[in-house]
């Protein structure tokens, strides 16, 4: 049962971090890793499985995050309800934009998705009456059954649970007719179509799944940080998300989380290099890509002795 393996590993990793963490600082970093891990797992469905690039994916995180912030502030709805609405809006936008945009390939697709991301970023920045503009806005603390959703320990648990569920759903999808259709059109669109797969529809499915995962990550980020700025939807965040997927390993759920860990946690470790911190991060990324070109997790798994006749 391959599909339960990566959720199980992630659950054990979360448990290990929980037992070994000696400070709230560690739990906070781990929480950020898990939140971006959810976004990266989703983006991996689009990039790693279906083979379609998106350079504007942070836009969907922005929609989730700002729905969570704006909903309670402007309409007085519960933050979680507002967050759920944000997830639905992100999915609907991806569905509407998916078909025309995903007809494009390669560089044209990259530029079109980049444009989508910039568009969302500009709306969040310019509509200051609603979003607080470039300075961002506070997020009301969510309260569920009298429990305020705050504190490092609680958010570590919430993000761990969401990450494990996100991995389980992604693995289930991967080993299903839909997941196979996505991987098939990645390798050959014409052969996929010949097998009866509606290529345009399935690309849109991947785009919507990735958008929903991104928006869920955005909702968690807003509630966890208690503050949102347009940077969550910015170009740099989009690039970081794609880097997480490629660095960790295209098509690998664990790889996406490993990529999220490197891009989120490594800068914290590299602060010992002080002003050379960003140079070191760049160097690590280059060396990893050169040494492990299929990404960290798939390359390491390939080093393992081949297991033949793997039952699924």
């Amino acid at each position, binding site marked *: 049962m391959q599909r339960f393996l990566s959720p199980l590993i992630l659950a054990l990793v979360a448990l290990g971090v929980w037992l070994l963490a000696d400070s709230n600082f560690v739990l906070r970093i781990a929480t950020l890793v898990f939140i971006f891990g959810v976004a990266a797992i989703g983006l991996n469905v689009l990039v790693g499985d279906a083979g379609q690039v998106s350079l504007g994916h942070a836009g969907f995180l922005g929609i989730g995050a700002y729905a969570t912030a704006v909903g309670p502030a402007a309409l007085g709805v519960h933050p979680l309800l507002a967050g759920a609405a944000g997830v639905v809006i992100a999915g609907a936008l991806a569905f509407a934009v998916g078909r025309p945009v995903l007809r494009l390939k390669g560089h044209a697709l990259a530029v079109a998705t980049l444009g989508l991301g910039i568009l969302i970023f500009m709306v969040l920045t310019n509509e200051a009456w609603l979003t607080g503009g470039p300075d961002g806005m506070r997020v009301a603390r969510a309260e569920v059954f009298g429990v305020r959703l705050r504190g490092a320990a609680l958010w570590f648990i919430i993000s761990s649970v969401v990450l494990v569920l996100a991995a389980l759903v992604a693995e289930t*999808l991967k080993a299903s007719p839909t997941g196979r259709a996505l991987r098939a059109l990645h390798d050959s669109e014409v052969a996929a179509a010949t*097998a009866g797969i509606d290529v345009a529809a399935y690309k849109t499915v991947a785009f919507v799944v990735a958008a929903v995962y991104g928006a869920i990550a955005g909702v968690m980020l807003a509630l966890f940080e208690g503050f949102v700025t347009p940077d969550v939807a910015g170009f740099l965040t989009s690039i970081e998300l794609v880097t997480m997927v490629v660095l960790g390993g295209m098509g690998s759920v664990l790889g996406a989380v490993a990529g999220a860990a490197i891009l989120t946690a490594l800068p914290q470790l590299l602060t010992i290099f002080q002003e050379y911190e960003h140079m070191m991060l760049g160097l690590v990324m280059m060396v990893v890509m050169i040494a492990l070109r299929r990404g960290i997790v798939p390359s390491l798994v390939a080093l393992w002795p081949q297991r033949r006749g793997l039952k699924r």
Partner: protein
Amino acid sequence: MAALSVENLSIAFGGIRAVDGVSFEAAAGAVTAIIGPNGAGKTTLFNMMSGVYRPTGGRVSLFGEDVTGLPPQGLALRGLSRTFQNLQVFFRMSAAENVMVGTHLSARRGVWRHLLPLPALFRAERASYDAACAELAHVGLEGEADRPAGALPYGSLKQLEIARALAAGPKALLLDEPAAGCNGAETARLSALVRRLADEGLAIVLVEHDMAMVMRVSDRVVVLDQGRVIADGAPAQVRADPAVRSAYLGGTS
């Protein structure tokens, strides 16, 4: 009624008529071969018949239904499948998964059911995997189910494409140069497979350069030259046709 019939089919690329008024029929339970010199328009004809190109004129019918200009997935739904001259294997998947993609149309679709890890999905996957193994055995690839497609030898990849096409449960199968690049043993194995599939009732249309294979497996041979049909008949009859000989030898007819 012919399984597959092509009437007056034409396509032009930038004023050049690559296929010009081609008509022929392919019967169920028979192998119809399309031969001709390089550039005669064989693959272009295939691409129109399988919905990859939209013809500029003429008609393609599948069991009497007009299917001209339908996209490949529409044709797959109506029982037409194909393989490709340049391999279009899903190299990132195992052999079994390649064939399971072929069963896409018969699988229970709907993304919702593929998101939740429920026993019904696991059972369906197991059944689909078993069906794929059976189809692999059908084309002579038993025991290769869990190998990555990228690790299979060339001849086996040709068989894998046929297994994937068969998994869709087609009534008509287009094979585009199945023996190209294969050695003698692989070609012999493919010839036997093609003949067997026709004997099982499939309508097979074959584009092939290997004349020995064409003469051995075909019931009928259609000869194309410069986008037109120059001969159509039984293999022996076509082989003796002077127009065919001159087309192949490059003479002025």
